[in-house]
């Protein structure tokens, strides 16, 4: 009863947030709506006892990915007027593409699902059941190769991203921090002893 009410509440906010992502004029607002949408889907996952997935969704997508995303979007100076140009020119093409996508979705969800058995709600386990432990037990034994391949792919992406930014431009000035830290006072200043000069008073 309470779970059902919560489900409808979270699902309603999720739908509104998802609509907000595509309809907001300001890209920063759209990004905030996306954060809200992620958060709501995490709550929906919590309702079906998938606490590991829910928390990791918040941790990875809301806590890290969207922060960097906002970081970039906030710094962009997007001219909305310029983006709106050519709206009528591209409208027919857009309508055709949207129609095809809608047809495909209907085909997959409605047409092909006729006569399929409806999955029941997953059975709830007791409070001692550890979602995380079960996932880990399968991930590192049965699916270890898929896991390793995914890890290698991610590593490859990191290396690729770093090599793209590591170009040496001529005349680029960089600080060598090790050199800065190793500096002693004797390298920079010279202490000179100067005898005090006193004017002879008469």
């Amino acid at each position, binding site marked *: 009863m*309470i779970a059902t009410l919560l489900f409808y509440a979270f699902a309603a906010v999720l739908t509104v947030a998802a609509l907000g992502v595509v309809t907001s004029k300001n890209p*920063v607002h759209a990004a*905030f709506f996306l*954060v809200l949408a992620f958060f709501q889907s995490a709550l929906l996952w919590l309702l079906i006892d998938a*606490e*590991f997935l829910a*928390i*990791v969704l*918040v*941790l990875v997508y*809301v*806590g*890290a990915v969207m*922060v*960097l995303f*906002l*970081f970039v979007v*906030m*710094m962009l100076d997007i001219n909305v007027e310029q983006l709106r140009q050519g709206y009528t020119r591209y409208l027919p093409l857009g309508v055709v593409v949207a129609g095809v996508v809608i047809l495909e979705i209907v085909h997959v969800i409605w047409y092909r699902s006729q006569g399929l058995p409806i999955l029941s709600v997953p059975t709830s386990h007791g409070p001692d059941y*550890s*979602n*995380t432990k079960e996932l880990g037990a399968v991930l590192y034994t049965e699916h270890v190769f898929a896991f390793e391949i995914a890890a290698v792919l991610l590593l490859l992406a990191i290396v690729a991203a770093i090599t793209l930014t590591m170009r040496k431009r001529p005349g680029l000035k960089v*600080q060598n*921090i090790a050199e800065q830290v190793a500096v002693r006072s004797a390298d920079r200043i010279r202490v000179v002893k100067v005898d005090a000069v006193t004017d002879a008073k008469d």
Partner: protein
Amino acid sequence: MSALLTYVDELLVGLGVPAPLPYVVVTGIKIVVVLLPLILSVAYFTYWERKIIGWIQHRLGPNRVGWNGVLQPFADVIKMLFKEIVVPANSNRFLFLLAPLVSLVTAFSVWAVVPFSETFVIAEIDAGLLYVLALTSLGVYGVIIAGWASNSKYAFLGAMRSAAQIVAYEIAMGFALVGVLMAGGSLKLGDIVLAQQGTSLLSWFFIPLFPLFLVYFISGLAETNRAPFDVAEGESEIVAGFHVEYGGIAFGLFFLAEYANMILITALTVLFFLGGWLSPFAGIAGLEGTWLAQSGFHWLAAKMVFFMFCFLWVRATFPRYRYDQIMRLGWKVFLPITIIWIFVEGVLVALEVGPWAV
């Protein structure tokens, strides 16, 4: 405490209150029992901070309101409550007022999984450590929203600095916690503390995980935007950073969230590395039966007070880092250290040396 809660629970069930309500009432009492002392400790933490920094700098600190200034925090709160909240022109009013609430809610909700003793914790959830990581990473949204909604370049610069810094240090923090997980064998915070139970304080995790302990505490300083990593506020460069446009109690909420987060970092450091509520004198002959040898909340509080002092000590001692040096420390120093130590720990576990001896 827990006896009282069981009594309330049984009383409500005995009175015929329908099923979820007694649980809601008991949890509500627990939340109040945690949050009220927390807010009070935040108030006195600020007083204590001004006193300690005063003494370190050879000053007296606040000493006018009440005996030796003990009522100073209340004077500050009353002042902030009565000040006007000015919403800047051309700013987004909804987001502007939402930002302090986001900071505060994330700072408070993490306390739900923090165990205060073997029996007292608000929510004993299985993925407690992941919950802590997820919610502490949400705290940055308060800063980002505040910086963006203020429509001020200083606030915006502060928010950008803070976002980059928190993301950088969160990774080192997460890796340090991976080491704790490998040693503790559980994601439940209470189980991690119980895994440190042994004959003496030598079985606490700060010995086998010493580099991770240092990395975690220093990342905690950076994560809460405290000196020497407080470039998000950087009053010498960008006035007051992300909360420059906030006044009155809206600023007060940011302040409350920041100090609640600091106390949280001390609590987590103690729970993960220093045996939480366990007594350091547990195995010593002649002390059995006394409160010194007894594990309980008093030991957790004593250890937390020490680390809270460290926060202030560090603030009064070190100059602020330059921004590129902060980034270098996070990405190029802490991250490799944690990864190397996780590898070392893995070898120790595989060879069953030290605390992993069977």
